[in-house]
C-alpha cells in the first residue's frame, strides 16, 4: 500500500459525500473558525483594559498568520482551534505528557502551557511544519517510519518534535542523551524502545543530510 493512500482524508466509497458534507477538513476551517472557539469568552469579566492587542500575528511553520486570541488562551488551543493545526495533541493539557510539544524558536515547549501571547515575536514549528512542500519528510519523520513508528501514535507528534529539537542541538547524541531529551514526553503504549531506536536513526539521518 502506498503512502499516498494513507493520507487521503477518507477512504473511497459512496458514503464519501456524506462524510465531507458533515465534517470540515481541519485545514479548511481556519477562515471561519471564530464561531468554533470564540475569541473572547462571552462571560469574561467586564473591565477590559487595553493591555494587549486582540489580533496578533503569529509565525507558525514559516507562515505569518493573524489570529484573534484571548489573554488566557494557550498556544495549543490557538493552534488546534483557530489555525486548524490539529497535529499538536492535547493529552493532559498540564505540561505533563508532551503530546502538545512544539518548537518555539527551535526549542521544545509544551504548547498547552504557554500563553499564545508569549510567542508573538517568535517562530513556532508544529508537526505540520516538518514535511517539505514537495512531500519530502523530515529526516526524523522518515526515521520513525523506517523503524516502524509508534503504536497508537497520539504521542507521536510531540515525540517527533522533541526528536527534532534534539537532532538540531546535538547531532551525535548517545542513547542515554536521547532518552534524557525525550523524557518530557510520555508514551502510554510503552513503546520507548522503538522510540529510542527511531530517535537514534533520526540523528543518523540528520547527520547524513548536513
Amino acid at each position, binding site marked *: 500500500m502506498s503512502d499516498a493512500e494513507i493520507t487521503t482524508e477518507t477512504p473511497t466509497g459512496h*458514503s464519501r459525500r456524506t462524510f465531507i458534507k458533515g465534517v470540515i477538513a481541519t485545514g479548511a*476551517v481556519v477562515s471561519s473558525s471564530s464561531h*468554533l472557539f470564540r475569541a473572547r469568552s462571552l462571560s469574561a469579566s467586564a473591565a477590559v483594559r487595553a493591555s494587549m492587542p486582540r489580533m496578533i500575528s503569529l509565525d507558525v511553520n514559516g507562515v505569518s498568520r493573524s489570529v484573534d486570541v484571548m489573554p488566557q488562551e494557550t498556544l495549543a488551543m490557538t493552534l488546534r482551534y483557530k489555525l486548524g493545526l490539529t497535529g499538536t495533541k492535547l493529552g493532559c493539557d498540564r505540561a*505533563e505528557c508532551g503530546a502538545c510539544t512544539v518548537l518555539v524558536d527551535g526549542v521544545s515547549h509544551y504548547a498547552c502551557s504557554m500563553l499564545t501571547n508569549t510567542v508573538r515575536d517568535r517562530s513556532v514549528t508544529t508537526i505540520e511544519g516538518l514535511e517539505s512542500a514537495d512531500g519530502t519528510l523530515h529526516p526524523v519523520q522518515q526515521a520513525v*517510519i523506517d523503524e516502524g513508528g509508534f503504536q*497508537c*501514535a497520539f504521542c507521536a507528534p510531540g515525540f517527533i518534535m522533541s526528536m527534532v529539537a534534539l537532532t538540531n542541538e546535538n547531532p551525535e547524541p548517545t*542513547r542515554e542523551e536521547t532518552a534524557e531529551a525525550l523524557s518530557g514526553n510520555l508514551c502510554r503504549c510503552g513503546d520507548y*524502545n522503538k522510540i529510542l531506536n527511531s530517535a537514534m536513526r533520526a540523528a543518523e539521518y540528520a547527520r547524513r543530510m548536513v
Partner: protein
Amino acid sequence: MALIGQDISPPDLRAKVTGRARYAEDFRAEGMVFAKLLLSPMPHARVRSVDASRALAMPGVLGILRAAEVNQPDAPGEAALTDEPKYVGEPILALAAVDETTAADAIEAIDIDLEPLPFAIDPLDSLRPGGSNARLEGNVMRLGESGREWEDLKWPQAEFDAAEAEGRLPMGEPTDEWDHGDLDAAFADADYVLEDTIVHQSLTHHPMEPRSSMAYWEDGRCYLYGSTQSTQRAHQAIAGQLDLEPDELVFVGQYCGGGFGSKIAGVPIYQVTALLAKKIQRPVMMRINRYEENYIGRARPGFQAWTKMGFRSDGKITGIDLYIIQDHGPYGRSGDYNTAGAVTDLMYQPDAMRFRGLTLYTNTPPRAAQRAPGGAQIVAMLEPLVDKAARELGIDRVEIRKINAPTHDSEFGPQRITTTSAFVREAIDAGAAQFDWAGKQALSGQRNGTKVTGVGVGLSPYVGGSSGFDGLLLIRPDGTLYIHQGIGNLGTHSMADTARAAADELGLEWDDCAVIWGDSSQHHPYSSVQAGSQTIHAHTRANYAAALDMKRKLQEVAAAALGGSASAYQVGGARVSGPGGSMSFAQAAERAIAMGGEYSGEALPEDINDYTRGSATQLAGQGLMGVARDNFSHEGSTWSWVVGFAVVELDTETGDVRIVDYTGSADCGVVVHPRSLAAQIHGGSVQGFGQARSQKWVFDPKWGVPFAHRLYTARPPGILDVPLSMDWAAAGEPDPQTPIGAKGIGEPPVGAGSAAVTSAIADALGGRCLCRIPLTTDVILAELEGRAQPHALTEIHS
C-alpha cells in the same frame, strides 16, 4: 514472498508522523459547540435538586442534559449521567455552550444540592460489621437462583481480629469458590509450604488520548466521532445505547490514542455527546480532559489476596490455596479475580487447588479490563513467591517455572479445560538464551557501592484468541484488494497485520491491498473486539476464510470466462491463470460484477453475521467479493505466554530502583510482524514496570476523594524509568488450532514485565518478598531500614 513474518510499514504510519492522523478531537463540524461535564464532588450522593437557571441565562449557553435523558441500565450497570453518583468525578450532567470557557463558567453557575450518602473506599471496610456499602443495593453480588443477586455481606469481627493477630488477610465467607484435587493431601505431600498476604493496587488506564468525542445529527442520522479499540463493535454498542438501528448511526474512529481495555467498544460518555447534539441541534465537541479521563477512563481492579502454596523438594507445586478480595468500583462486574484463579492453576499446574474470592463494590472509579485483566495482577503477586520457594529448595528460578509449566494437554481451571498449545518451555528457553540467564545470574546480589543488583524472571500467560468472526474482502475493478476491517486501530497494527492473511492467500503484494477501517459508513464485517489479544488470532482466521472464499470465486470467475475447470486455475501475482489463459484481478472484478450472484456479493453465505450481511449488501455489485465466517476448528482455549527477564539496581540507602536490562520472550504462535511483536512485548512490559514500581491510587479515607488524578500523581513510567535498550525473543511455534498459527500477544507482557521486576527487586533484597505492589521507593526503604511500612499490608488505596 509471503507477507506474514515480515516487517511492513502499517498503512497509517505516514499520517501518524505528519500529524494528519485524525483522532476524535481533531474533527470539526460547521457550527460546532462545546460540552462540559459537571462531576460529582462526593464519593456517593443523591442529587436533591439542580438549579441551572443562572447557567442557562448566560449568553452562549445552549442547553443541559440530565440523567433522566440518557439510558439508565439496571444495577450494577452504569449510565453516562446519573442522579446518584457513586464515585468522586462521576458525571451528573452535561452542558453545551458556544465555547469552552463559557461552558466552564456556566457549569460553575449551576446550583446543585447533593445529599451525601454512606460510602466505602477500601473493600475490607465494607466487609466489617457495621461497615458502609458502596451501593444502596448491597456490597456484593452472589450467584443465586435468578442469576447474580445483591447481598449486604458482612464478616464477623472475630475474623478481622484473628487476621490482625496473625498478620494476614481477613478471609470470611467468599461469594465464589472452586477447587480440584485433595488440597490437604497436596500440602501434606509438600516439602515446603509458604503462606503470604499480598496486595495489588488499582490503576487507571490513562491512554494518551482521553475519550473525547464529537457528534452531530443530519437527516435523522447521528454522526459520531470517537476513540475506540474496536470500530464495528463500538458502532453496534453505541447504536444500542442510543436506541438506534446500526444504519442510523455513523461511527468514525479511525485512530485510537490508546485504550488498553478502557475503550473496548462503546464508551458511555459518547452517548452524552450524541444526545446533547440532538437536543440542541448543533454539532457538539465533548473534550474530555485528563482530570475527567482519570475518573471516567476506567481502571484495573486491585486485589487483596492471600495464598498458601506447597512445593515438593524437586520444585513441583503440589497445592495452591488462593483467596482474592477484589476492589471493584461501583459498576458492572469485573471478572479479574476469577481469571486470576484460572491463570494461577494454568501456570503452576498444582495437583490440587482451591480458589475462593469475592468482588466488592466500592466508591472508586469504575473498573474495566486492563491489558491482561486478572492475569497481570496475579502473576506479579505470585511469581516472587515461587522465587522464594526456589531459593529455599535450591532450585534454579527459571527451572522451577519450567518444572511446573503446562503442556498442550494440561487441564486447568474449574472446568478443567485444556489449551490449544503451550510452548511455554520453548519460550522460556528462547528468552533465557537471549537474556543470558545463566550469565546474568552471576550478577544477582552483586554490590557496586550502595547499589545491589537483582535479577528476576516472571512468567505470564493470558488468553490469546477467539474465533467465529467474519471476513469481508472486495476486489474492485481497479485491481486493488480492499480488506474491510471492523477491528479498531489502536496501534497494535493488527488492523494491517491480520489483513496479510488474505493478501498472502491471494498472493498479493502489500501495495495491491488497501485496508478499509475505522468508519462504519465504510462497511465493516462483524468483528471481534480488539481486546483480550483476540484480533491476530480471530481476524487472521476470518480474513483467511474470506480469502479462501475469494480465491474460489476468482477461480470460478476465470473458469467461466476462460474455460476449463475452476480447480485448474492458480491465483498469484495479482492474476488468476489456468488452462484457458490468465486474467488480472481487475478483469476478474469486472467479470464478477457482470456475473452477479455470490461473485459480486448479491448472494451471501447463510452463516455470516447479520451485521456483515448488511455491510456486504451495501458493497454488492462493486467488485468481486470474498466473504465468509471463520468456521475453522478451534478445540481448546487459546493462551499466549510471555516470560520476562529483568535486571534491576537497587540503591540500599535510598530505596531507589533502576531497571537496567529486560528481555521478553513470547509463545504467541507464528510471528506475523516481528517489529510489532517486539513493540507489544516491550510496550506491555513497560506498562508492567509502572504497575510494579510507581503507579497507584490514593484516596483520602475520610472524604473518599482521590488524589492520583494527574499523570504526575498517577505516575505512569517515563522513558527514563525503563532500560535504555530492551530485547525480545519468541518461540515461534505455530498454534495447531488456527490456520495461520498466530496467537494474540497484547495481554501477557504486562504481567511478565511486572512480575520480572517484582522478582528482581525481591532478589536484590536477598530473596525477601515484600508482598506489596507497587514496590515504591518508600516501601523498599522501609524494608531496608527495618522500619514500619508506610501503610498496613492490606490497605489498598494508600
